[in-house]
């Protein structure tokens, strides 16, 4: 273990009491920094400097085993150009879709009325006609969740809405009190969007400040780029596929940013550890140390993303399957898409950017 090389005066095998006693005094994090050396590189399955890569050959185990033990050998920093190109293409496609296809906004943004009542497919037509006759401009009628009819109409004032409720309850043969109406003014959607944009701006500023203080400003840049990537890709997916955008979508979008950042912080924490005191010794370049960190935390990042995705999958299943529409489904959908994008950006995007920025620093280049 490298510790023995660092302290040539005392060769203590790892695991003995003396070693542990000494380790007790040492700073655990300092040890981690010292531990980021060629041996660690080899363990992670990465080529050390000047190494033709021959050392890796005998150690090839199954991918799962390698992942489990942090030996995946992913060269994220080295392949940063390729990653940038792929990401740029994806982002451009998303932006193009947003510009040309636009979004499918729910009634909360466009304004209008909606009615939910227990019923089934056989009653759909009658209910729809009854609503039209009562004066509503029916935009869509569908059955959701297997047992609920959802009617979307243009804006109605209170009196007209009451008429529609009565007519529709009649047609479906239920009590008027079982109909759940919702009416949203067109300005409400604008209000929500404004608030959301404001929250987003404040969040970004706070994040930059936090990261700059906790780690360093260049890491803040890397994290922000990753966040923007997540935003654009998620919005792009929504636009491409045509999912409905509702206020819950907006909530979810802001949450994704929190998650993605969480993910990125986990990676940056390890990068920070590995690159601490790096200028003091010439063990490896900043980029290599950062890359090593990514590999060492790969399993953790994957686990983090999977574990975050599992409950969301549950939400999606219930939201889409049982309820059909509403808060749960919208939220779950956007979180699902966003978490996947977030995982990608934390692992593949954030660190290479920081490494590239760092390598321009004169002291690192030396």
């Amino acid at each position, binding site marked *: *273990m490298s510790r023995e090389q660092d302290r040539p005066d005392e060769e203590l*095998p*790892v695991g*003995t009491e003396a070693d*542990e*006693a000494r380790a*007790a005094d040492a700073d*655990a994090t300092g040890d981690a920094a010292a531990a980021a050396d060629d041996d660690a590189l*080899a*363990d992670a399955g990465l080529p050390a400097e000047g190494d033709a890569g021959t050392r890796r050959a005998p150690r090839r185990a199954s991918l799962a085993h390698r992942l*489990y*033990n*942090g030996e995946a050998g992913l060269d994220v920093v080295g392949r940063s150009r390729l990653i940038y190109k792929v990401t740029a293409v994806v982002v451009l496609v998303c932006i193009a879709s947003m510009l040309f296809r636009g979004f499918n906004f729910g009634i909360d943004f466009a304004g209008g009325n909606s009615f*939910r009542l227990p019923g089934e497919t056989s009653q759909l037509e009658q209910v729809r006609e009854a609503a039209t006759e009562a004066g509503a401009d029916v935009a869509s009628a569908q059955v959701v969740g297997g047992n609920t009819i959802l009617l979307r109409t243009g804006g109605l004032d*209170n009196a007209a809405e009451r008429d529609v409720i009565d007519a529709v309850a009649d047609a479906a043969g239920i009590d008027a*009190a*079982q109909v*759940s*109406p*919702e*009416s*949203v*003014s067109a*300005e*409400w959607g604008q*209000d*929500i969007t404004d*608030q*959301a944009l*404001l*929250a987003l701006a*404040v*969040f970004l500023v706070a*994040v930059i400040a*936090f990261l700059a203080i906790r780690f360093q400003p260049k890491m803040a840049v890397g994290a922000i780029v990753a966040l923007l990537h997540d935003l654009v890709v998620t919005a792009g997916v929504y636009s491409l596929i045509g999912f409905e955008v509702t*206020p*819950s979508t907006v*909530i979810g979008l*802001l*949450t994704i940013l*929190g*998650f993605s*950042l969480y993910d990125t*912080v*986990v990676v940056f*924490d390890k990068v920070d550890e590995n690159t601490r005191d790096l200028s003091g010794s010439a063990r490896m370049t900043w980029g290599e140390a950062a890359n090593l960190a990514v590999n060492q935390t790969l*399993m953790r990042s994957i*686990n983090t993303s999977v*574990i*975050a995705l*599992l*409950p*969301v999958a*549950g*939400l999606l*299943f*219930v939201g889409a399957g*049982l*309820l059909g529409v509403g808060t749960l489904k919208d939220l779950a959908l956007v*979180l699902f898409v966003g978490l996947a994008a977030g995982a990608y950006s934390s692992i593949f995007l954030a660190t290479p950017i920081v490494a590239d920025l760092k390598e321009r620093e004169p002291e690192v280049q030396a």
Partner: protein
Amino acid sequence: MANRALPARRYFGAFVLIVAVMYGLIFFTGTDRTPQLGLDLRGGTTVTLTARTPDGQAPAPEDLELARQIIEQRVNGIGVAEAEVVTEGDTNIVISVPGDDGEQARELGQTAQLRFRPVIGAPEPAAPAETSDPATPSDSAAPTDGATPSDPAAPTDSAAPTDGATPTDASSTGSAPATGSDGAVSDPALDPDRPAVTQEEAAAQFATLTCSTEDTRSEVARPDDFVAACSEDGTTKYLLGPTIIEGTEIADASAGTQQTTGEWVVLLDFNGEGRSTWAEYTAANVGSNVAFTLDGRVVSAPTIQGAINGQTTITGQFDQASAEELANQLRYGALPLTFEQATAQSISTELGAEQLRAGLIAGAIGIALVFVYALVYYRLLGLVMIASLLLSAVVVYASLVLLGREIGFTLSLAGIAGFIVSIGITADSFVVYFERLKDEIREGRSLRSAVPRAWVRARRTILSADAVSFLAAAILYWLAIGDVKGFAFTLGLSTVLDLVVVFLFTHPLMAVLARFKAFGQSRFSGLGRVDRSRRATDPMAAAERQLVGAGSGGRATQDRSQA
């Protein structure tokens, strides 16, 4: 050994204490044992009104608060139970009415107009709970005093005072022209489906009158119309003439006590133009009644005692509460605010129950999936994760109940979604810890020494990452409106509680478990699969390490969890 044992016990003890205190509070004080449910889970109506000022700015906080109080009075006046009116952000007022009869709450979005109109004829007692046919206008539905349809001058007909705000007798003036005052039907306006009120006037002289169907919930009558209006409590009806002064001319109104008699009065000030109009009118109409109508209903109909050039004093049998209420209502008329109904949502009780069920199922599925994954990936360590998640749930539930009691926190569907999402965050902190543990073990440490070292490194990461989540939740909560607030609150709450569980339970538990060597080396612990000492190309060195490792098992080592 003794050194290390104590801290774990201390942490466990602290944790148990916290849980015990919380549940003790729940069971031994107060009455609620379950969290408060929001309206989208209980069923009810939620109406959001957005206030707008003429120049498009946000209203002043005091104005918004005043408006909120007035609307609250109006909501309570409808008679719905447990209605709640709160402000949200700096422009919204949210009215929440549980249950299935929140229809009327939707009406409150209409703009309230305050007007001053002369009372024509005598106020007549309205018939309680009377619904009559509007198509027969001459059919007076006032059984008590024989409403005389075409008798304009009932000079000494003194009606019962309405709400204590009619200070003197309504001795009408005989100056009202022949009006077909047919005693407009006045239903207690508690029933929104009652037939519309109609009024017939002497057609020739009141051709401009157009208010044939009037919903007295909102003042749709034009200022120059004659209207028939009810008093606020629905016991008296009035025939009113055209508007003398609009409520917007009011500069201020306040309640105070008469210096001489000590009785409560309401003081009213008009602005410049209003004052002169008022002065003229009062000078010309001493002895007649003026009605203040709000929302098309008469809140007060005092008699003019004399010409008023400056401040108006309204006397009557006021007590402090009624004086302040009237003053508020008058001031409200002066508010430069209009309200628009931004959203109105009614959830039937069945739908609410269904959504609650769906939310709980989603939570259960999410937790089950995480459990399965934890067991598959971490084996026995997964049990530690599961135990921690369960304890998190216990603490979260207790907080929900207590918060519901203390600050009236209600759990909405978005809130449930927030908790479900935070399952991921909570589980993640364990992942961070366990992966660090694997790192340490990979470096060749024994489990016992790996745990505290892993903890020191993991702790920093967990704190940074949770700080980020909390920051996101806090910003969302502070800035957002509507559902988002509930979501952000539960997200932030779970992040904080996650820290509590990880610090006080998970880590001490790991420290305790680490004492069992079998735990670290068993194939089932999830740690046994970790490669140790791969770097050893020399099999002898590897064997030495194993031996040495075995030998150190019995020694006491320092507890580094305090590091």
